[in-house]
Structure formats: C-alpha cells, structure tokens
C-alpha cells in the first residue's frame, strides 16, 4: 500500500498554516511527522483524515485519487485519526465507544454478543486489558487512549494518524503504546505519528517527515537521524537541547513559600516544604501521586483540609485563589484549555485577566495601559505572529502557553507555581520556557515546577522532591539523582532510599 499526499495547503483567516506539502506514506511502516508547534502537523493530519477541509491537496491510494473530504469518506478508505482531544462519548461503555456508529445489528436491533466477541479478539491482538462494560469517563487517560486505538482497529483502519498520543502517558504506558504501534505497522497499517518526544519518534518510526512553518522540509528514513539533527531541521537552526544552569541560591535568601502539614483528602497528605527566593524546586512523581493537587491546595484552587501556607512569612487564608494571588502566589495550571485560557476571548483579554485590578480606574479598564502592558509582555516572551485582538485559540500550543505565562507574570508574583510548563509545546518554545523559569528565579522569584517529564524537573530544579500517594517521599539536590533513581522512588520499588510509608 502506498499513499501519496499531494500539494496540501490550508489557511486560517488568511494566515497559511500549510503550504504545498507533498510526501508519501507506505503500509507496514511508522511515519513520524515532526515540527514545532504551529508547523502544520496537526492540520495536515486532520486534512488527510477528513477532519478539516484543505484549501488544496489530494490523496492518492496506490496511485488512484480518493476523496477524503469528510471523516466518513476518510473512514471508508480506512483513514482514521486519533487526535489530541480524544473523541469519545464519556457516558458510554468501552464497548459502545469502540463500535460507535457501527454496532453489529439485525434490522436495527443491536447484537451485543457479536460485538463482544470481536472486542475480545481486538484486545487479544493488542494486549490491552480493558473491561468492555466500564464507562469511558471512569477510565484513566491512558486507557481512554487505548479505547481510541481499538476503535481505529475495529473500523478496519489501514492508515492511522496519531496526534501526540503519548503526551499524557507515563513512561510505562508510553512503552506499551509504542509496542502497539509497532504491531499495527507489522500487520500492514501505515501509521503516522506526531510527537514532541524525539527519542520516542526515533525508537519507533521507520520514516520521518519534518515540517516547518507549514512547508515540507524533508522526508527520509529515521535511521541515521539524531535528536540534534531533527531539531536542526525543525527550527531551521541548531538549538541547544541542554537545560540552562540555574543560578545558585544565595545563602541568605529568604523563604518565600512555606507549607506545613498541608492535606487534602487522600490526594495530599501532610506536605511540608520551603522554597527560597531564587530557588527552583521541582516535584516529580507519577500521574495521580498528588503533584497537581498539592499545587492546587497551595494556591487555594481546592480548599485544604489541614495545613498552613505562608508567603514571605505571612499566612495565606486557605481556599481562595484571589487571596493567594494577593499574597503573591501565581499558578500556571496543568491544562491550558480547561483551566488556563478563555479560548474564545482575545489574546489581550487573556493576558490581562489575572491582573485586571492593576490597570483600572473606578472599575473601568484602562485600555491604552492594558494594550501596552500586554504588548510588552508578549514581545518579551517572543509570542510571534499574534494579533492582540484575535482569539487566543488561533495561536499555536507553544504561543498559547506563553500567553498563559504572560498572564501570570503581569503582576510579578513572589512565588510562581507551574504545573506541566511545557506540555504539548514544541522544542523551540520549550527551551524558551526553560530559560524564562531560570531567569525568573535569578531575579528572585521562588519557582515550584511540577512535570511528568523527569528530565525536565531534574534539568531545571535546584532541588527535586519526589511524591508518592500524596506524600513527599524523598528529596534530591541538583545533580544528585538520575531519572532512573527518581522514577524508582516514585514507584517505591527501591527499599534502600528513603523511609517508606507504605500503609498510609
């Protein structure tokens, strides 16, 4: 099987995101699609799978042009897309989701047993362990992704696009998914994989295509490529993959954030920590270990059951983001889309949202001051190609993330807490965000970073705290731990590190 993509082009509101992109996919191979955020990867994949209508371009299947103008058309030819935002019906069962729209039926009456048999075959083929009658909304994100994969297989898909499938997965889950991807290709499917994790792409892909600014840069075999060579193609210039070195904390630096015995349900248990001015502290741990919940409790997004939080020596009343902010706390939340940005509103309004009080007169927004402050902030953060008045959803993920940072830096907080600073962000923006965090700390801010990427936490922080089952279970000074050690502690299968508290 050979799939030729020819001359794909697409513009949004006059701004081209894809320009005359052509390359070839082959059955039985995994094809990596790389590029910075905004390079056009997702748009291309959506266009090929009928989720968006391209302005130009056609698909040839074994030399014959085929119509893939709608998801239905695309599915008919075996093209299917597993996108970043999972397209599942949360209130339905796993089985119903897998066979959504193509339930076995006789005269409209469903034949559940036939579906169940097929489901069993599918799970055997992929090695997934899923309960067909579980509700999708009760499943963790990794399992939901598996449901999407099963659905693609159930539809007999022969061309499977995956847009950042591993962004939300833990290391083990990622390994398992990559294994499945290899198996799909071995069975003859053409898999297109978008991922920001270059090691992962190199480990699983046979071919790699790089896009930059909507243009096709190159397509070739993965063998012989290195992360450095790929990054150079993606950004058009060589870039340092190294983390910037944080400036040492001054020995007399005051403690800016202090928590004692912070608890909330079973998610956060007696967390105590101190962060000094100029210090970057990282929290590592598995998904569900209570990292994000700890940040939320510190910030007052969720009210803690017990514990004290002090900012710069003064106690902060619990359970109110507004009060936490007045004390000098800021939190960049985990999910831009759900917790961070108001996607339908303009860039300017989003940047201004957390600091409206600073630029008002008798309740009126001082428009000029706001435009200037927002413009300066975004220029400083290198948000490119943005119209301050345009809705924020039109920006690339990396730029959206920078807007989110900008929003929280407008009032210069004393303590900046960041949950997943670079999730779904391209390599270039990632480096910029890392440098920004190091710079902010150097200017005297206390920074608390949570990330699922252990390398990120280790690379940025002066000190790394490890969390497990809602407790802080270990601490490493900078340079004193390998990713493996941190992960081992997070999983708690090493008896010889810290005093473990298993039966808490």
């Amino acid at each position, binding site marked *: 099987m050979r799939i030729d993509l020819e001359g794909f082009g697409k513009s949004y509101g006059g701004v081209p995101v894809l320009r005359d992109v052509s390359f070839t996919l082959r059955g039985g191979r995994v094809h990596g699609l790389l590029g910075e955020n905004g390079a056009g990867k997702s748009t291309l994949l959506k266009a090929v799978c009928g989720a968006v209508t391209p302005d130009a371009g056609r698909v040839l299947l074994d030399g014959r042009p085929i119509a893939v103008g709608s998801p239905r058309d695309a599915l008919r030819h075996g093209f299917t897309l597993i996108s970043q935002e999972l397209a599942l019906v949360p209130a339905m069962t796993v089985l119903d989701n897998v066979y959504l729209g193509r339930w076995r039926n006789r005269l409209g009456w469903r034949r559940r047993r036939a579906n169940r048999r097929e489901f069993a075959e599918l799970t055997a083929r992929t090695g997934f362990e899923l309960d067909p009658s579980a509700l999708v909304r009760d499943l963790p994100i990794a399992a939901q992704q598996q449901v999407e994969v099963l659905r693609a297989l159930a539809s007999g898909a022969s061309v499977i696009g995956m847009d950042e499938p591993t962004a939300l997965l833990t290391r083990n889950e990622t390994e398992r998914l990559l294994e499945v991807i290899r198996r799909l290709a071995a069975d003859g499917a053409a898999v297109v994989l978008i991922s920001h994790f270059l090691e992962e792409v190199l480990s699983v892909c046979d071919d790699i295509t790089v896009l930059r600014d909507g243009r096709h840069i190159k397509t070739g075999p993965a063998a012989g490529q290195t992360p450095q060579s790929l990054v150079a193609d993606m950004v058009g210039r060589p870039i340092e993959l190294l983390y910037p070195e944080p400036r040492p904390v001054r020995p007399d630096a005051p403690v800016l954030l202090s928590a004692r015995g912070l608890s909330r349900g079973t998610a956060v248990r007696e967390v105590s920590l101190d962060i000094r001015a100029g210090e970057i502290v990282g929290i590592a741990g598995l998904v569900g270990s209570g990292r994000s919940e700890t940040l939320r409790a510190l910030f007052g997004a969720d009210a803690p059951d017990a514990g004290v939080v002090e900012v710069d020596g003064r106690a902060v009343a619990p359970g109110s983001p507004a009060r936490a902010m007045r004390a000098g706390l800021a939190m960049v939340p985990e999910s831009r889309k759900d917790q961070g940005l108001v996607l339908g509103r303009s860039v300017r309004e989003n940047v201004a*949202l957390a600091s409206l009080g600073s630029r008002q007169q008798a*309740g009126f927004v001082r428009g000029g001051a706001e435009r200037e402050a927002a413009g300066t902030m975004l220029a400083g953060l290198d948000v490119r190609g943005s119209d301050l008045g345009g809705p924020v959803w039109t920006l690339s993920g990396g730029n959206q993330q920078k807007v989110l940072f900008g929003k929280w830096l407008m009032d210069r907080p004393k303590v900046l807490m960041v949950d997943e600073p670079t999730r779904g962000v391209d390599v270039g923006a990632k480096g910029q965000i890392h440098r920004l965090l190091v710079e902010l700390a150097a200017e005297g801010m206390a920074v608390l970073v949570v990330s699922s990427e252990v390398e990120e936490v280790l690379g940025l922080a002066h000190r790394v705290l490890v969390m497990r089952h809602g407790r802080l279970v270990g601490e490493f000074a900078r340079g004193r731990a390998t990713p493996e050690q941190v992960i081992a502690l997070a999983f708690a299968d090493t008896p010889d590190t810290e005093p473990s508290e298993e039966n808490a």
Partner: protein
Amino acid sequence: MTATTADVKADVKAAPGRSARLRDLGIVLGVVLIVVVLSLSTSTFLTAGNLVNLLDQAAVVGLLATAATLVIISGSFDLSITAVLALSAIVAVAVTNAAGVGAGMTAGVLTGAVLGTVNGIVVVRIKVHSFIATLALSIIYRGVAVILTAGAIVYPADDRATAFQALSWPTVLGGVTAASLLFLAVVAVCWVLLSRTTFGRRVYAIGGNEEAARLSGIRTGQIKVAVFAISGVCAALGGLVLAARGGSAQASLATGMEMTAIAAAVVGGTSVMGGEGAIWRGLIGVLLITLIGNGFNLLGWDTIYQQVVQGALILGAVSLDRLLRGRRS
C-alpha cells in the same frame, strides 16, 4: 529569553482583523434589508410617528433581551425574567397604593434586584443548572404573584393612576416615550458595563471558561450573583413599563416573553455557550423581531401568518449570519 529571538521580534500582524469584523455584521445586514424593503414598500414606515412607535414597542422586550444577553454571556440562563417582571409590577402597584408612586416604582425595582439576587444565590450555592433553577424559581414567583393578587388584576388608586402611568407618556424629545428613553438608558449602561469595565471582562471570562476565571482570582460566585441581580432589575423595569402602559398589573403579565427575549439575544449572535456576544447584538435581535410585527401592521397583512413568518425570518437571519461568519469549529 530575548537572546535567540532578536531577529524575529514580535511582529504584531494586523491579521484577520477588519474583514472578520465585517463578516460579524451579517445579522445587521438582515435588519438593514428589512428596513429597506419596508421603507420602499410602504409610505408609512419611515415616518417619525412610526419610528417612535417602533421604539416604544421594542422597550419591554428590549429590556428583557438586554438582561438575557448579559446572563447568557456569563454562561447562564435566566428563565425567570418575566415572572420577576410580573411580581415586581404587582409590588409596585401595591406599594403605590400604600405609599405613593415614587415609593411604588422604587419598590418595584428593588423587588427585581432581590429576586435576581435570589436567583443568583440559588444557582451559585446549590449549583443547580441555571436553566432548571430559574425555571423552578419562575414558577414560585408567578405563584407568589397569584397569591398576592388573589388571581385578580390590581390597579393603582384613582388619584395616583395618572402619575403611575408616567412611563408610558411621550416626552419632549420628539414624542419618544419615557419607556423608550428608559430602555435606551439601560442599554447604554449595560453596554458600557460589559465592554469597558473590569466587571464586564470578568463576565466574559466566566462565560468562556469558568474554571480559568476562578483560577485567575475572579470571585466567580459574586460576579454571577451580580449578573442575575442586574437581570432582575432589567426585568423589573420592564414590569414598570408594562404596568404603566396598562395602568394595572396581574400575575400573568408578559407570560412567554422570556423566550422572545432569549431568541432576540441569540438571533443577534450571542453564543448560547457563553463568553461571546455583546449588548448591541441583543439590540439588533430585538429590532429584527419588532420590525417583523411592525411590517405586518404597515403592510396590512393578516396577522394570523405573523408567527410563521417571524419564526422563518429568525431562522433565515441566523442562517445568513452563520454563512457569513463561516464555519469555524
């Protein structure tokens, strides 16, 4: 993080800007079309008398649509506006009889504010969806109105009846009624409130993404209660106008008009998903709906067809709007 990026600077493009904003005006085009057709096909449409009349007709539904627009932008629905309207009008009549017209009007407005605040508190505290909460509360309010009036029509006392109807009088401004001026003033205030103040920004943010708003330090509960309170005041003002016009009030006042008001808000292009829209859009919607009634009148068409035409025109206007704005999702 400026070292690597001096070459690109922030090139702030004048991207989609103007053309997008023009496309936004699709619904305005629809209204202009109707105005042109009516102006050409009748000799009576473009007369001062008719336009004054048109504005007066739009006043009550306009006040309600302003309330609906505000609430919908904040991400909620207020189905109780006409029940609040009726109860406020009844309280106004009762207090007028007890303590005079000025006190009566004030009491009417206060009733609206209180009932609106109750709506807001119920929605925020009990966390029932506003659609259901205000539906239930509206039934209660109508019920209270029936109890207060014993199901009858209530009138202000004879010596106060004239002053009570002041809102329906024409003013020195070319005969434009006091009700019309009140309507325009409320529109102006709400317009400024939404588009120029930090309160307005917070309302849009809550409607667009409540969790993001809360995490940005916005006291979402307070803002929502305030929005419902404003909605209640707008409704009460509508009640005063209706009571002034009829010289009476009753429990069934303006029944069903909340749907027209919500339709007007949505027809104007305010998203039912919240976070998007504008007061002027509600105004356009009201204009469209009022024009249709006015057109039937002037053209001498049989009013039995009016509802069908009204529904069809609303659909047509909204489809045109969708078409011009393009599919984006």
